[in-house]
């Protein structure tokens, strides 16, 4: 009888110890899982940041594309403009007759274009750009971005 009781008690002790070992293992597993969840959350947060960066780059590229399209359209209009008499502007002839003037105008356009890229990149508008209300004061490449107070007339 005593042997049976001792055996039962010994078995109980062994069982409890096994349970405690399982419990410790489970606790360790829970800690690992929690670490895993934290890592996953960090990965997800990083992915969200990356996604935002990708969207920003895409938007910047779209803005850049718009600027280039406007610049191209402006150049086409400038190079092929008709005057009131119906004569088409001859940039070639003007470049021969007044080369320095044409070079100066093209350089000015290039400066405007570069400034448009800066604005797309986040550069703040200057006082001069903000206060521009006349056609002669605006950035001819991207007035909608560079000169918010200019209204076409």
């Amino acid at each position, binding site marked *: 009888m005593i042997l049976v009781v001792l055996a039962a008690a010994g078995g109980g002790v062994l069982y409890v110890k096994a349970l405690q070992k399982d419990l410790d293992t489970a606790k360790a597993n829970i800690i690992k899982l929690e670490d895993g969840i934290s890592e996953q959350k960090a990965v997800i947060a990083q992915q969200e940041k990356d996604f935002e960066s990708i969207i920003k780059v895409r938007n910047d590229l779209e803005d850049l594309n718009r600027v280039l399209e406007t610049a191209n359209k402006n150049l086409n209009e400038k190079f092929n*403009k008709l005057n009131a008499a119906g004569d088409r*502007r001859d940039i070639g002839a003007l470049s021969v007759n007044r080369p320095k003037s044409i070079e100066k105008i093209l350089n000015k356009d290039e400066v405007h274009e570069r400034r448009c890229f800066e604005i797309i990149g986040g550069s703040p508008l200057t006082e001069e750009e903000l206060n521009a209300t006349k*056609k*002669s004061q605006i950035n001819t490449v991207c007035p909608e971005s560079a000169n918010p107070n200019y209204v076409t007339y």
Partner: protein
Amino acid sequence: MWKEQVMQVLERHFGTKKPITETSHFIDDLDGDDFDIVDVTDQVCKKLEITIPEEDTFNIATVQDLLNEVEKNIVQ
């Protein structure tokens, strides 16, 4: 006489929808651009058979500026 000829060039180039006066700004009032200023200067030079140095035309913004440059070069 030469002033009338200059105004004729300007009216032919910009039209007569907008009044062209001595104070008219080529870009702001006549809806022109920098190339128009070079273009009309070139046309005026040909019409009056004069030469205006390019450097003197860089700051032309109004009709009066153009008239001043023409006058300077006709007198000389």
